[in-house]
Protein backbone atom coordinates (compact mmCIF):
# COMPACT_ATOMS: atom_id res chain seq x y z
CA UNK A 1 0.00 0.00 0.00
CA UNK A 2 1.20 3.49 -0.84
CA UNK A 3 1.23 5.89 2.11
CA UNK A 4 2.02 9.24 0.56
CA UNK A 5 1.69 9.89 -3.15
CA UNK A 6 2.94 13.03 -4.87
CA UNK A 7 1.46 13.80 -8.28
CA UNK A 8 3.25 16.47 -10.33
CA UNK A 9 1.48 17.51 -13.53
CA UNK A 10 1.37 20.84 -15.36
CA UNK A 11 -2.31 21.36 -16.19
CA UNK A 12 -5.66 21.02 -14.46
CA UNK A 13 -7.26 17.98 -16.20
CA UNK A 14 -3.95 16.13 -16.80
CA UNK A 15 -5.03 13.83 -13.97
CA UNK A 16 -8.47 13.02 -15.37
CA UNK A 17 -8.14 10.39 -18.10
CA UNK A 18 -4.93 8.54 -17.25
CA UNK A 19 -4.67 8.67 -13.50
CA UNK A 20 -7.86 9.55 -11.61
CA UNK A 21 -9.04 5.96 -11.17
CA UNK A 22 -5.68 4.89 -9.79
CA UNK A 23 -5.60 7.81 -7.37
CA UNK A 24 -9.15 7.09 -6.18
CA UNK A 25 -8.09 3.47 -5.60
CA UNK A 26 -5.02 4.51 -3.58
CA UNK A 27 -7.10 6.95 -1.51
CA UNK A 28 -9.65 4.19 -0.88
CA UNK A 29 -6.78 2.01 0.35
CA UNK A 30 -5.67 4.68 2.81
CA UNK A 31 -3.09 6.69 0.89
CA UNK A 32 -2.66 10.42 1.24
CA UNK A 33 -2.35 12.20 -2.11
CA UNK A 34 -0.75 15.57 -2.77
CA UNK A 35 -1.33 16.92 -6.27
CA UNK A 36 1.09 19.66 -7.31
CA UNK A 37 -0.36 21.30 -10.39
CA UNK A 38 2.19 23.59 -12.01
CA UNK A 39 -0.16 25.94 -13.90
CA UNK A 40 -3.84 26.82 -14.20
CA UNK A 41 -3.91 25.86 -17.87
CA UNK A 42 -4.66 29.49 -18.58
CA UNK A 43 -3.68 29.19 -22.27
CA UNK A 44 -6.10 26.32 -22.96
CA UNK A 45 -8.11 26.55 -26.17
CA UNK A 46 -11.33 25.00 -24.91
CA UNK A 47 -13.74 27.47 -23.36
CA UNK A 48 -16.89 25.32 -23.41
CA UNK A 49 -19.43 24.99 -26.20
CA UNK A 50 -20.78 27.63 -26.58
CA UNK A 51 -17.84 29.36 -24.86
CA UNK A 52 -18.72 30.20 -21.25
CA UNK A 53 -15.13 31.14 -20.36
CA UNK A 54 -12.69 33.59 -21.95
CA UNK A 55 -8.93 34.11 -21.85
CA UNK A 56 -9.61 36.44 -18.93
CA UNK A 57 -11.83 34.14 -16.85
CA UNK A 58 -10.26 30.80 -17.79
CA UNK A 59 -7.71 30.62 -14.91
CA UNK A 60 -10.45 30.98 -12.28
CA UNK A 61 -12.78 28.62 -14.15
CA UNK A 62 -10.10 25.93 -14.42
CA UNK A 63 -9.02 26.34 -10.80
CA UNK A 64 -12.59 25.64 -9.68
CA UNK A 65 -12.80 22.66 -12.06
CA UNK A 66 -9.55 21.25 -10.67
CA UNK A 67 -10.80 21.59 -7.10
CA UNK A 68 -13.97 19.78 -8.10
CA UNK A 69 -11.98 17.00 -9.77
CA UNK A 70 -9.83 16.58 -6.65
CA UNK A 71 -12.96 16.27 -4.49
CA UNK A 72 -14.32 13.65 -6.89
CA UNK A 73 -11.12 11.59 -6.64
CA UNK A 74 -10.66 12.11 -2.91
CA UNK A 75 -7.33 13.97 -3.20
CA UNK A 76 -6.69 15.53 0.20
CA UNK A 77 -4.00 18.09 -0.68
CA UNK A 78 -3.93 20.26 -3.81
CA UNK A 79 -0.98 22.60 -4.33
CA UNK A 80 -1.11 25.22 -7.06
CA UNK A 81 2.47 26.13 -7.89
CA UNK A 82 1.64 29.26 -9.88
CA UNK A 83 3.67 28.76 -13.02
CA UNK A 84 2.25 29.99 -16.34
CA UNK A 85 0.79 27.60 -18.89
CA UNK A 86 3.01 26.87 -21.93
CA UNK A 87 6.15 28.27 -20.23
CA UNK A 88 7.48 25.30 -18.21
CA UNK A 89 10.19 24.47 -20.76
CA UNK A 90 11.43 28.08 -20.57
CA UNK A 91 11.28 28.49 -16.79
CA UNK A 92 14.31 29.00 -14.61
CA UNK A 93 15.21 25.34 -14.07
CA UNK A 94 16.59 25.93 -10.59
CA UNK A 95 13.34 27.62 -9.53
CA UNK A 96 11.23 24.82 -10.98
CA UNK A 97 13.42 22.10 -9.48
CA UNK A 98 13.53 23.77 -6.07
CA UNK A 99 9.72 23.89 -5.85
CA UNK A 100 9.53 20.16 -6.62
CA UNK A 101 12.45 19.36 -4.29
CA UNK A 102 10.75 21.21 -1.42
CA UNK A 103 7.62 19.12 -1.86
CA UNK A 104 9.58 15.86 -1.88
CA UNK A 105 11.50 16.89 1.25
CA UNK A 106 8.30 17.95 3.01
CA UNK A 107 6.22 14.90 2.09
CA UNK A 108 8.72 12.01 1.68
CA UNK A 109 6.41 10.38 -0.87
CA UNK A 110 6.55 6.62 -1.40
CA UNK A 111 5.32 7.11 -4.97
CA UNK A 112 5.64 10.04 -7.40
CA UNK A 113 3.53 10.22 -10.57
CA UNK A 114 4.37 12.51 -13.49
CA UNK A 115 4.70 12.54 -17.29
CA UNK A 116 7.41 10.49 -18.99
CA UNK A 117 9.84 13.15 -20.30
CA UNK A 118 10.15 13.05 -24.08
CA UNK A 119 7.05 10.91 -24.68
CA UNK A 120 4.19 13.07 -23.48
CA UNK A 121 3.41 15.29 -26.51
CA UNK A 122 2.83 18.67 -24.87
CA UNK A 123 6.04 20.66 -24.17
CA UNK A 124 4.76 21.41 -20.64
CA UNK A 125 4.23 17.68 -20.01
CA UNK A 126 7.76 16.81 -21.12
CA UNK A 127 9.34 19.69 -19.18
CA UNK A 128 7.35 18.81 -16.04
CA UNK A 129 8.42 15.17 -16.17
CA UNK A 130 12.02 16.16 -16.89
CA UNK A 131 12.10 18.40 -13.81
CA UNK A 132 10.73 15.64 -11.55
CA UNK A 133 13.23 13.12 -12.91
CA UNK A 134 16.10 15.62 -12.52
CA UNK A 135 15.25 16.27 -8.88
CA UNK A 136 14.78 12.62 -7.94
CA UNK A 137 17.88 11.48 -9.83
CA UNK A 138 19.92 13.81 -7.59
CA UNK A 139 18.71 11.93 -4.49
CA UNK A 140 20.72 8.99 -3.13
CA UNK A 141 19.42 5.87 -4.92
CA UNK A 142 18.20 4.21 -1.71
CA UNK A 143 16.09 7.28 -0.79
CA UNK A 144 14.36 7.67 -4.14
CA UNK A 145 10.61 7.14 -4.26
CA UNK A 146 9.16 4.93 -6.98
CA UNK A 147 8.24 7.04 -10.01
CA UNK A 148 5.35 6.07 -12.27
CA UNK A 149 5.12 7.91 -15.59
CA UNK A 150 2.29 8.60 -18.03
CA UNK A 151 3.21 8.55 -21.75
CA UNK A 152 1.14 8.87 -24.92
CA UNK A 153 3.25 10.26 -27.76
CA UNK A 154 3.12 8.71 -31.21
CA UNK A 155 5.17 5.47 -31.30
CA UNK A 156 6.33 5.92 -27.69
CA UNK A 157 6.32 2.16 -27.10
CA UNK A 158 9.06 1.71 -29.71
CA UNK A 159 11.36 3.71 -27.44
CA UNK A 160 10.22 2.87 -23.90
CA UNK A 161 8.43 -0.43 -24.39
CA UNK A 162 5.08 -1.46 -22.95
CA UNK A 163 3.91 -0.01 -19.65
CA UNK A 164 4.82 -2.25 -16.73
CA UNK A 165 2.18 -1.12 -14.22
CA UNK A 166 -1.52 -1.80 -14.85
CA UNK A 167 -4.38 -0.98 -12.52
CA UNK A 168 -7.90 -2.28 -12.89
CA UNK A 169 -9.91 0.77 -11.86
CA UNK A 170 -13.37 -0.49 -12.78
CA UNK A 171 -14.43 -0.20 -9.14
CA UNK A 172 -13.53 3.51 -9.26
CA UNK A 173 -15.14 4.51 -12.56
CA UNK A 174 -17.65 6.66 -10.73
CA UNK A 175 -14.77 8.74 -9.32
CA UNK A 176 -13.00 8.80 -12.68
CA UNK A 177 -16.01 9.92 -14.70
CA UNK A 178 -16.77 12.58 -12.07
CA UNK A 179 -13.17 13.80 -12.33
CA UNK A 180 -13.41 14.02 -16.12
CA UNK A 181 -16.79 15.73 -15.98
CA UNK A 182 -15.47 18.26 -13.45
CA UNK A 183 -13.40 19.76 -16.26
CA UNK A 184 -16.49 21.11 -17.90
CA UNK A 185 -14.75 23.78 -19.97
CA UNK A 186 -12.23 21.28 -21.33
CA UNK A 187 -14.05 18.04 -22.11
CA UNK A 188 -17.27 18.11 -24.02
CA UNK A 189 -19.74 15.31 -23.47
CA UNK A 190 -19.25 14.16 -27.07
CA UNK A 191 -15.51 13.83 -26.59
CA UNK A 192 -16.04 11.85 -23.42
CA UNK A 193 -18.79 9.47 -24.36
CA UNK A 194 -19.26 9.78 -28.10
CA UNK A 195 -22.58 10.66 -29.66
CA UNK A 196 -24.43 7.79 -28.05
CA UNK A 197 -24.56 6.82 -24.43
CA UNK A 198 -21.95 4.15 -23.84
CA UNK A 199 -22.97 0.93 -22.17
CA UNK A 200 -21.36 0.04 -18.87
CA UNK A 201 -19.32 -2.55 -20.77
CA UNK A 202 -18.04 0.06 -23.24
CA UNK A 203 -17.17 2.49 -20.44
CA UNK A 204 -15.24 -0.25 -18.63
CA UNK A 205 -13.36 -1.21 -21.82
CA UNK A 206 -12.43 2.40 -22.50
CA UNK A 207 -11.71 3.72 -19.02
CA UNK A 208 -11.36 0.65 -16.82
CA UNK A 209 -7.59 0.19 -16.89
CA UNK A 210 -4.78 2.69 -16.30
CA UNK A 211 -1.17 2.08 -17.34
CA UNK A 212 2.15 3.49 -16.15
CA UNK A 213 5.85 3.13 -16.85
CA UNK A 214 8.13 2.75 -13.83
CA UNK A 215 11.00 5.16 -14.43
CA UNK A 216 14.40 3.38 -14.41
CA UNK A 217 17.05 5.77 -13.09
Amino acid at each position, binding site marked *: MEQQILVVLPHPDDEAFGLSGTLAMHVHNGARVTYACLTLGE*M*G*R*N*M*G*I*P*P*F*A*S*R*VTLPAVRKAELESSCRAIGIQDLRLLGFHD*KTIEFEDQELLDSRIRELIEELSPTLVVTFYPGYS*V*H*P*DHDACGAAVIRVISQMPAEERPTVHCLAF*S*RNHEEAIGRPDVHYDVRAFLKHKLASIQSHRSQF*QAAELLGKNELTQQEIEARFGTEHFWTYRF
Partner: protein
Amino acid sequence: MQLIQPSKVQQLIEKLKDQDLYVHIEQTTGAYAAHFDSSKHPAASFLTNARIRYSHGAISGNGPFRVGLKMAHGWVYSEGLTHYEDTETERLIMAGHDSQGKLIVALQLSPEPF
Protein backbone atom coordinates in the same frame (compact mmCIF):
# COMPACT_ATOMS: atom_id res chain seq x y z
CA MET B 1 -18.74 35.11 -24.36
CA GLN B 2 -21.35 36.04 -26.96
CA LEU B 3 -21.32 36.22 -30.73
CA ILE B 4 -19.78 39.51 -31.85
CA GLN B 5 -22.09 42.42 -32.47
CA PRO B 6 -19.88 44.67 -34.59
CA SER B 7 -21.54 47.92 -33.52
CA LYS B 8 -20.93 47.14 -29.84
CA VAL B 9 -17.30 46.27 -30.51
CA GLN B 10 -16.85 49.44 -32.56
CA GLN B 11 -18.18 51.50 -29.64
CA LEU B 12 -15.57 49.97 -27.33
CA ILE B 13 -12.81 50.50 -29.91
CA GLU B 14 -13.77 54.21 -29.97
CA LYS B 15 -13.89 54.40 -26.18
CA LEU B 16 -10.40 52.94 -25.76
CA LYS B 17 -8.58 54.95 -28.42
CA ASP B 18 -5.94 57.61 -27.67
CA GLN B 19 -4.97 56.09 -24.31
CA ASP B 20 -2.28 53.77 -22.98
CA LEU B 21 -3.57 50.19 -23.01
CA TYR B 22 -2.37 46.69 -22.29
CA VAL B 23 -2.84 44.25 -25.16
CA HIS B 24 -3.09 40.46 -25.26
CA ILE B 25 -2.88 39.07 -28.77
CA GLU B 26 -2.69 35.41 -29.61
CA GLN B 27 -3.02 32.92 -32.41
CA THR B 28 -2.70 29.17 -31.95
CA THR B 29 -3.31 25.82 -33.58
CA GLY B 30 -3.00 24.14 -30.19
CA ALA B 31 -0.12 22.03 -28.95
CA TYR B 32 -1.79 18.78 -30.06
CA ALA B 33 -2.28 19.70 -33.74
CA ALA B 34 0.43 17.36 -35.05
CA HIS B 35 -0.37 14.65 -32.50
CA PHE B 36 -3.92 14.34 -33.86
CA ASP B 37 -2.97 14.89 -37.53
CA SER B 38 0.67 14.58 -38.61
CA SER B 39 0.04 16.75 -41.68
CA LYS B 40 -0.63 19.72 -39.39
CA HIS B 41 2.08 22.16 -38.43
CA PRO B 42 1.65 23.36 -34.84
CA ALA B 43 2.15 27.10 -34.51
CA ALA B 44 1.27 29.56 -31.79
CA SER B 45 2.20 33.05 -30.67
CA PHE B 46 1.01 35.14 -27.82
CA LEU B 47 1.99 38.50 -26.40
CA THR B 48 0.55 39.52 -23.05
CA ASN B 49 0.50 42.95 -21.43
CA ALA B 50 2.53 44.88 -23.98
CA ARG B 51 1.67 48.60 -23.84
CA ILE B 52 0.08 50.13 -26.92
CA ARG B 53 -1.90 53.22 -27.91
CA TYR B 54 -3.92 53.56 -31.08
CA SER B 55 -5.42 56.60 -32.73
CA HIS B 56 -7.91 54.85 -34.96
CA GLY B 57 -9.48 51.41 -35.04
CA ALA B 58 -12.24 49.46 -36.76
CA ILE B 59 -14.00 46.13 -36.90
CA SER B 60 -14.73 44.81 -40.37
CA GLY B 61 -16.23 41.86 -42.22
CA ASN B 62 -19.45 39.85 -41.91
CA GLY B 63 -18.22 37.31 -39.40
CA PRO B 64 -15.79 35.95 -38.53
CA PHE B 65 -14.60 39.52 -38.08
CA ARG B 66 -11.35 41.40 -38.57
CA VAL B 67 -10.06 44.18 -36.31
CA GLY B 68 -7.32 46.68 -37.17
CA LEU B 69 -5.88 49.27 -34.79
CA LYS B 70 -3.67 52.06 -36.17
CA MET B 71 -0.79 53.07 -33.91
CA ALA B 72 1.76 55.86 -34.30
CA HIS B 73 4.31 53.45 -35.81
CA GLY B 74 2.37 50.39 -36.91
CA TRP B 75 -0.75 48.29 -36.72
CA VAL B 76 -2.44 45.62 -34.64
CA TYR B 77 -4.38 43.15 -36.81
CA SER B 78 -6.54 40.13 -36.03
CA GLU B 79 -8.68 37.99 -38.31
CA GLY B 80 -11.13 35.26 -37.36
CA LEU B 81 -12.81 36.87 -34.35
CA THR B 82 -16.22 35.40 -33.53
CA HIS B 83 -16.97 36.15 -29.86
CA TYR B 84 -16.72 39.06 -27.41
CA GLU B 85 -17.55 39.64 -23.77
CA ASP B 86 -20.60 41.88 -23.67
CA THR B 87 -20.51 42.43 -19.90
CA GLU B 88 -17.20 44.33 -20.14
CA THR B 89 -17.52 48.12 -20.27
CA GLU B 90 -13.89 49.19 -19.74
CA ARG B 91 -12.10 46.38 -21.60
CA LEU B 92 -12.48 44.80 -25.01
CA ILE B 93 -12.25 40.99 -24.86
CA MET B 94 -12.52 39.20 -28.22
CA ALA B 95 -11.73 35.70 -29.43
CA GLY B 96 -12.23 33.51 -32.46
CA HIS B 97 -13.46 29.95 -31.92
CA ASP B 98 -13.28 27.27 -34.60
CA SER B 99 -16.02 24.81 -35.56
CA GLN B 100 -15.11 22.60 -32.58
CA GLY B 101 -15.37 25.53 -30.17
CA LYS B 102 -11.62 25.79 -29.64
CA LEU B 103 -9.97 29.18 -29.36
CA ILE B 104 -7.86 29.94 -32.41
CA VAL B 105 -7.27 33.69 -32.07
CA ALA B 106 -7.69 36.30 -29.34
CA LEU B 107 -7.41 40.07 -29.10
CA GLN B 108 -7.88 41.85 -25.78
CA LEU B 109 -7.41 45.49 -24.74
CA SER B 110 -7.50 46.91 -21.24
CA PRO B 111 -6.36 50.04 -19.36
CA GLU B 112 -5.10 47.65 -16.62
CA PRO B 113 -2.82 44.62 -17.06
CA PHE B 114 -4.45 41.24 -17.71
